[in-house]
């Protein structure tokens, strides 16, 4: 899907910067999903991402990714998105570099953190997220 998206956007642009940013955010969103997917104590894991990309006007895109997460992870996710949304590009660059050099042995969530910062760096507007509770255990999280 990423390849098809890349080809479509490239075909409509003389330069690839916009295409690279849109595709880059798409890939990081898609690859972040398994890191935040409900996997424990909530029944069957649901690693499927629901993704929407819309072109609003020439050179302006909105990308949304949603997936089922555990209620227990929601607060952390919301706090992280709010922190990133409040940072300017210079601060984002600094924390991106810190995250790049953070210890590697703490598992998957670190790469997820790096990907989220990458998305915030590419975005021309602050990240936003929302939540639709599904049951006592799970919720549908949309970035």
């Amino acid at each position, binding site marked *: 899907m990423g390849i098809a998206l890349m080809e479509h956007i490239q075909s409509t642009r*003389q330069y*690839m*910067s916009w295409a*690279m*940013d849109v595709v880059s955010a798409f890939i990081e969103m898609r*690859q972040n999903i398994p890191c935040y997917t409900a996997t424990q104590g909530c029944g069957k894991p649901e690693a499927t991402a629901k993704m929407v990309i819309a072109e609003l006007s020439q050179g302006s895109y909105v990308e949304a990714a949603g997936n089922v997460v555990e209620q227990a992870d929601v607060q952390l996710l919301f706090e992280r998105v709010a922190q990133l949304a409040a940072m300017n590009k210079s601060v984002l660059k600094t924390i991106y570099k810190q995250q790049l050099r953070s210890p590697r042995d703490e598992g998957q969530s670190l790469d997820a953190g790096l*990907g989220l910062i*990458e998305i915030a760096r590419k975005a021309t507007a602050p990240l936003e997220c929302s939540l639709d509770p599904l049951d006592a255990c799970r919720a549908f999280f949309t970035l």
Partner: protein
Amino acid sequence: MNLSLAGTPSTPAIQVSWDSGLLRMSGDSYPENTCGLCSGVIAWVANILAEISLPLGLELHPNHLNASSIRAMIDVFDRLQIAFDSGRELSVVWLYDNRNPRSAELGEESSKDYKLSFTITKAPFVE
């Protein structure tokens, strides 16, 4: 060890030559799962730095790299910097497609963290 791997839509073409001390990588790198290829490249660089003392050259022609691949690349550069500090002769050539200034920006941004010499040059991407 010499190795030549063809690229795929989500993994780069890689050629390494132990005898000439050259590592070439070109294309996209955004594999879905853990980047096994990245660990292989990091191990190759670590081995060649440890086992022989010939000059080592990296020729990188990246298009899009995902966050995990960039992290792996930083691991490689960190190892090169340590070797450079110990007197090893090293060179990094970073080629970028004119249509993809994001690649040039990534090269520039990465190079600023190192004392290694980076040559960042425009070059058309050849599939």
